[in-house]
């Protein structure tokens, strides 16, 4: 477990705060002093999981480094909705260059800090799943391989959302996107394509790899804090539902992330030096259907005839994750 779970304070550490907890046990998000690194007025859609995940992670990083961070951001929703020139929603030093080079820019910033002797200023590079898993994958692998002192955060909304919901290599099988139409013999995205970057990151044997979802703030905060306590290349992959791309209700963002984790479809774990060290256990297991059904991108699976093949494929993936990451054991 990444953070100390308070067994019984009515809501324990499941909620953001809790007036009954000791102040030391409260989350960064629950305090009035949080940075609000991504401030109000940004142009993300209603209920955007990426905006939420970014504030959770950046506020935690700010708290962990005494406010000494600089961010390199890839092109994508997070960049576009936060910074329409000349406005910005960022309350932290922040730089944007290209879609594919956030990891390289981050590595450069880290080198600059080293040269200037500013060891206290920490570098974070971040982007969407498209920039991470696809176009920016080469620079990312290079940053890992060189063990550059950068934390890379991927906000995974399972598609190229900013340009109109094209599929990425992180898009779930069977999902409908604008490039994987829900027509034909195998409607939606192919079964058996795609990649899971956290496992590839682990193959680089970097000091720290972790996954998280916006449904568990405490877990994100603990993982970002851990990452900031380490040096070298680190990677955190956060699942962030996208109401627009997923065709889900804006109020379901957190719930869907929770269902992804509780079904096992998205494993939440931590790894050190290439080895899994811990995983967040499933609390109330649900079938993958509970995650799929509220999303229009999977509506074709539940039409007149249920697409048992696709549902079964995804359920099998969830079960494999449960076995592989020990998601059900105490």
């Amino acid at each position, binding site marked *: 477990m990444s953070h100390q779970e308070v067994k019984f304070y009515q809501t324990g550490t499941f909620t*953001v705060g809790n007036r009954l907890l000791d102040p030391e046990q409260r989350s960064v998000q629950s305090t009035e002093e949080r940075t609000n690194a991504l401030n109000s007025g940004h142009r993300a859609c209603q209920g955007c999981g990426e905006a939420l995940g970014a504030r959770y992670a950046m506020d935690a990083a700010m708290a962990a480094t005494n406010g000494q961070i600089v961010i390199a951001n890839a092109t994508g929703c997070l960049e576009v909705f936060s910074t329409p020139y000349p*406005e910005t929603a960022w309350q932290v030093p922040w730089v944007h260059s290209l879609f594919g080079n956030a990891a390289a820019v981050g590595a450069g910033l880290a080198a600059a800090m080293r040269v200037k002797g500013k060891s206290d200023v920490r570098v974070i590079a971040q982007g969407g799943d498209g920039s991470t898993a696809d176009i920016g994958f080469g620079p990312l692998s290079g940053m890992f391989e060189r063990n550059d002192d950068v934390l890379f955060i991927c906000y995974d909304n399972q598609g190229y959302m900013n340009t109109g919901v094209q599929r990425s290599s992180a898009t779930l099988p069977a999902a409908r996107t604008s490039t994987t139409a829900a027509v034909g013999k195998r409607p939606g995205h192919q079964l058996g394509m795609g990649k899971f970057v956290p496992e590839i990151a682990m193959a680089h044997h970097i000091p720290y790899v972790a996954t998280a979802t916006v449904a568990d703030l405490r877990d994100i905060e603990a993982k970002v804090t851990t990452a900031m306590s380490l040096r070298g290349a680190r990677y955190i992959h956060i699942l962030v539902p996208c109401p627009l791309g997923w065709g889900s209700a804006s109020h379901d963002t957190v719930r869907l992330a929770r269902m992804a984790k509780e079904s096992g479809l998205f494993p939440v774990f931590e790894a050190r030096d290439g080895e899994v060290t811990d995983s967040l256990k499933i609390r109330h297991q649900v079938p993958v259907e509970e995650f799929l059904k509220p999303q229009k991108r999977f509506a074709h699976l539940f039409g007149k005839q249920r697409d048992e093949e696709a549902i079964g494929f995804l359920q099998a993936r969830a079960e494999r994750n449960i076995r592989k990451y020990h998601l059900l054991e105490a």
Partner: protein
Amino acid sequence: MEKPFAITLDPGTSLSNHTGSWRTERPVYVHRLPPCNNGCPAGEDIQGWLFHAESGDYEKAWHKLTENNPFPAIVGRVCYHPCESACNRGQIDEAVSIHAVERFLGDEAIKKNWAFPLPVQKSGKRVLIVGAGPSGLTAAYHLACLGHDVEIHEAGPMAGGMLRFGIPQYRLPRDILDAEVKRILDMGVTLHLNRKVENALTAMQEGGFDAVFLAIGAHIAKRAYIPAGAAAHVLNAVNVLHDLETGEKPLLGRRVVVYGGGNSAIDVARTAKRLGADEAVIVYRRTRDAMPAHPSEVHEAEAEGVLIRWLTTITQAEEGELTIEKMCMDDDGSLQPTGEFETLQADSLVLALGQDVDLGLLEHVPGIEIEGGVVKVGENMMTGCEGVFAGGDMVPSERTVTVGIGHGKLAARNIHAWLNGETWVHPPRPAIATLDRINRWYYSEAPKVVQPELDAVRRMNGFEEVVQGLNADNALFEARRCLSCGNCFECDNCYGVCPDNAVKKLGPGKGFEFDYDFCKGCGICVAECPCGAIDMVPEDI
């Protein structure tokens, strides 16, 4: 200003972009009525006092509780807690043990000598209360809080009504009763014992009172016609329990049969066991399901060895022996005699068939309406006679302690208004905080704390209290099982989960506020509020 190459504008902030204009619905904080509060006959704000108990501030919790009910130590023991039947947590694992925490607070208050605040201003009005049972004492408490001079006239030698002369000590120790009564008298309420009121109106006029509240209970034992031989030993429950309290040990014998199915029947049977009877049998006409006695008491009685004969009537009583007949129930639920008779050995037969009200004091009072042996009152608890109010067992009611307490409070509010030439109106009731509004994910799994019980052997040795209380630790745990249905408990979820940073935190105890300049109306805060304290309402566009 000098700008770098190719830069023409200063960096601006996104705060100039008021995304609130996107909204079609807005979140608003609400207070819903928790089902427990709705179920409490005394109108306690249970969620409200549990909130303070959760933080360990028992004194504040007690003050919040006693705003509505001055008897937490008593009702924590004897109330049938309909609040718990209504509690939302009951549908998740087990209801919050509200009565156990209530009792703990009441006992703490006695231990620590907490007192009621005295009224700031005296009204100069005088109110007479007839009867020092729970209903009359509660009215006295609330009227005293409102600044009125209160005088209680009580026929009996001690205060408490059926709390003392009905409910046995093993369920309500008398030091507890005395302490909670004394606290009310300490507010300056005058109590005259052994002062039976013969005529309500003259008592009010002669004493120069501005209003009167009658709460005389129901004390005349009901009878059933049972042919009995001259030597048959037939008693009634009210007298047996009353005698016990005044120190006369009732002679019941070794084999005691109790006739009836209410709580008095159970109490008499359990009392008989404690007085040394080898056998205590309750004979009841109907089935277990139909029994008006509370299941928990039936269970405790059975654990103590009390036997119950269901679907049985008594047809004849003779010395040492009763004739009983088996009954059967028709499909429509009506009872039919079967003609199957049996004899039952019995040294005494105690009738526990309910009580009637002694209405003598109203005989010469104009305007009073009586229906089914009880006095009719309006919504404001006033009888047909101006200035004469009534409540508790003597008016149409379920006849429980807490209903009586609720009547006392309601009467006090109405008397207060009436004395000022006004009418009291109930503040609008918010909608119920239903379970479907609870986001269960956020609550930890936590089974309820079981109150320890005295073991059966020690129970039979006397009138020691059977059900024990909680201690400070497990009372805190139990209080914290409350979901805080429909009322913000400051978990910070809304403040955290808003992707637009549109919730302002106002500081401990002050809650939160929406920043409608930026709230886009996504509804995440509503969905993720654990207790359902936020509503989504359409914008008028």
